[in-house]
């Protein structure tokens, strides 16, 4: 500073201001004009920019501004419920807390973490790992926990732990209806069963609304229209939860009693084709997500095929009657208990002598059936089998229903036609078998089976005459009676009819000698059937393995209970066991 002043002092002494050559020189006029022009251009640019931002392209900043105060709130739609025919819940969604954290905000002592881990049923190490990353802004701790657990978590008072509401599926009937109802994944998408089949209807559409929030996070104003959530539709099944439960219980007990591998039951309403119950054992709890793997998920009644064996005989006999080749009393020579067709011999389990056609069914004679079948054209047999649904994909709104196997008749060799008459060389699921029996129960019409309640009586496909169907029902009644193959199918008060089946299991290319499959298909009451019940027990391993010993008792119990629950009056006389002598009330 001092130096500067000295210098300027020196200059003041030597320079004369009035005659400075700098002042004398004239500024050229273009300089001022250029400046004015530059400033003018600058303002024009600014105005232009302002116009583009404010008027022409105003959306960007409007949007940015809106983001500062407007919030979009999601209005979650709930998934539809699944109920049985009487309105009992089979699956419903409830809103439950899901716990998440902002790891960098979490401040907790070791003890608190330990308690949190215990509450959430997580290993403490895993929880610590989740909370360890100091930069993470979000981490799920545990999704879909119970309400009381969340309250306990809140009580721990750990900072940085929050909840969101999510819907969780509840299955009140649990494992009894698990294969039927199916389950959903954590995102609420159907994965199996009805949950998958009706995913589109059950799934709702989330709604949304735009709001303005104030400093305290309160909603103070709505912007625009609210998009209401579309809740999923409720599905009412034809299933009766009580019948379903009972059927499941019985098959579970039977599997345990016979040390079997698995078992299935199908109960159809013979008049409407509705599925009243469809149960398999082993089953699973659809609410426990970690169990949802493996063979227990298989809906065996629909997905497992097997050779229907003796249960096919009534169809062959029905066609023999229908085509006028025989009457129920026509005698057939089955001695000596074997028949040879193109070099292969077919045997009966026990040799019989001369049997009537009705007795062929009652005693389940292979030889008798083969003799009837060999009178038929192979095409006739094929048409009959496919009309009642063998080798056809079931028209059922349900995932995973298999087609079974029925080869085209042109490739049948005579021996194959013979074996197919008693149920070998083709395959079917238990469900297909039950449905095929509607042809006898419905007086010759085969009707489609349905998972949903039917409002109108179904239109059936006529396969045989009503008289023929009635004649076969009579034979089925004999088969399930004393002297037949399954007297254990009898119930108290209701007449029943049905056919047993027992087969060696096929493993690879050969039949095993020690593994069996036993089943029974029947209907009740036999005069005017209301239900068809099919039972299958896989690998019974406790001494007995015949369908009449293993599957028929299950059939009997299921029929008894189902008809009672449906309020069907017994058609057989029952010796009353009512012992109370109540005082007659007078009105």
């Amino acid at each position, binding site marked *: 500073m001092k130096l500067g002043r000295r210098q300027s002092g020196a200059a003041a002494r030597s320079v004369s201001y009035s005659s400075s050559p700098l002042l004398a020189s004239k500024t050229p006029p273009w300089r001022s004009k250029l400046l004015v022009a530059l400033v003018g251009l600058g303002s024009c640019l600014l105005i232009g920019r302002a116009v583009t931002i404010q008027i022409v392209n105003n959306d960007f900043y409007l949007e940015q501004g809106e983001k500062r105060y407007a919030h979009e709130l999601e209005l979650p739609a709930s998934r539809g419920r699944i109920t049985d025919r009487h309105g009992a*819940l089979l699956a419903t969604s*409830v*809103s439950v807390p899901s716990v998440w954290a902002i790891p960098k905000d979490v401040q907790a002592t070791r003890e608190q973490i330990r308690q949190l881990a215990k509450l959430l049923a997580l290993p403490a190490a895993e929880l610590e790992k989740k909370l360890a990353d100091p930069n993470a802004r979000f981490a799920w701790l545990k999704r879909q926990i119970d309400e009381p657990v969340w309250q306990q978590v809140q009580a721990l008072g750990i900072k940085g732990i929050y909840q969101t509401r999510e819907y969780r599926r509840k299955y009140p009937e649990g494992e009894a209806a698990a294969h039927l109802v199916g389950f959903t994944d954590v995102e609420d998408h159907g994965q199996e069963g009805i949950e998958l089949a009706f995913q589109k209807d059950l799934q709702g559409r989330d709604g949304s609304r735009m709001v303005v929030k104030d400093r305290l996070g309160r*909603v103070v104003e709505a912007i625009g229209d609210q998009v209401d959530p579309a809740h999923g539709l409720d599905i009412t099944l034809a299933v009766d939860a009580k019948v379903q439960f009972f059927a499941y219980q019985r098959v579970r007990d039977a599997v345990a009693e016979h040390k079997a591998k698995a078992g299935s039951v199908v109960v159809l309403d013979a008049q409407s084709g509705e599925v009243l119950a469809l149960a398999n054992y082993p089953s699973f709890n659809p609410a426990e997500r970690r169990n949802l793997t493996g063979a227990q998920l298989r809906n065996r009644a629909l997905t497992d095929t097997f050779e229907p064996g003796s249960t096919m005989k009534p169809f062959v006999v029905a066609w023999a009657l229908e085509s006028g080749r025989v009457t129920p009393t026509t005698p057939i020579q089955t001695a000596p208990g074997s028949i040879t067709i193109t070099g292969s011999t077919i045997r009966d389990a026990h040799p019989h002598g001369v049997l009537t056609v009705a007795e062929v069914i009652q005693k389940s004679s292979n030889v008798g059936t083969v003799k009837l079948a060999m009178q038929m054209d192979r095409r006739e047999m094929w048409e009959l089998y496919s009309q009642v649904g063998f080798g056809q994909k079931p028209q059922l709104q349900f995932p995973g229903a298999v087609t079974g196997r029925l080869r085209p008749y042109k490739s049948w060799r005579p021996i194959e036609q013979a074996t197919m008459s008693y149920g070998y060389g083709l395959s079917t699921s238990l469900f297909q078998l039950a449905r095929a029996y509607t042809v006898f129960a419905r007086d010759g019409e085969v009707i489609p089976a349905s998972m949903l309640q039917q409002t109108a009586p179904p239109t059936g496909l006529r396969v045989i005459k009503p008289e023929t169907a009635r004649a076969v029902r009579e034979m089925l009644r004999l088969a399930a009676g004393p002297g037949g193959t399954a007297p254990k199918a009898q119930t108290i*008060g*209701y007449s029943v009819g049905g056919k047993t089946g027992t087969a060696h299991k096929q493993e690879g290319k050969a039949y095993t000698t020690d593994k069996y499959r036993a089943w029974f298909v029947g209907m009740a009451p036999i005069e005017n059937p209301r239900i068809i019940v099919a039972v299958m027990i896989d690998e019974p391993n406790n001494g007995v393995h015949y369908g009449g010993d293993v599957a028929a008792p299950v059939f009997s119990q299921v029929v008894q209970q189902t008809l*009672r629950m449906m309020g069907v009056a*017994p058609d057989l006389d029952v*010796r009353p066991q009512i012992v109370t002598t109540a005082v007659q009330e007078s009105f």
Partner: protein
Amino acid sequence: MTRLNMILVLALLASSLYLVRTAYDSRRLFAELDKAKNEAARLDTESKRLEAEREAQATSLRVERTARERLAMRTATPAVTVYVHDDDVAAGAAK
């Protein structure tokens, strides 16, 4: 003239203050409405949850076990059932 202007200024002032108040009220009421709606939604989910809970308490398994064990009930069979037909009822009523 001044007097009229004064009156107009006062009126304007009053009206503006009233506007501020109305705007405030409307926001407050809206917030309350929103809170009530949230409460309604919460109660709705709660009722659904309780309904599911009730259903879970009334599963066939539990009903049967309770009936058997606590109430000592047995399954009815046709042998211990009296079937009443509609015509019997009509005849009985006529008596």
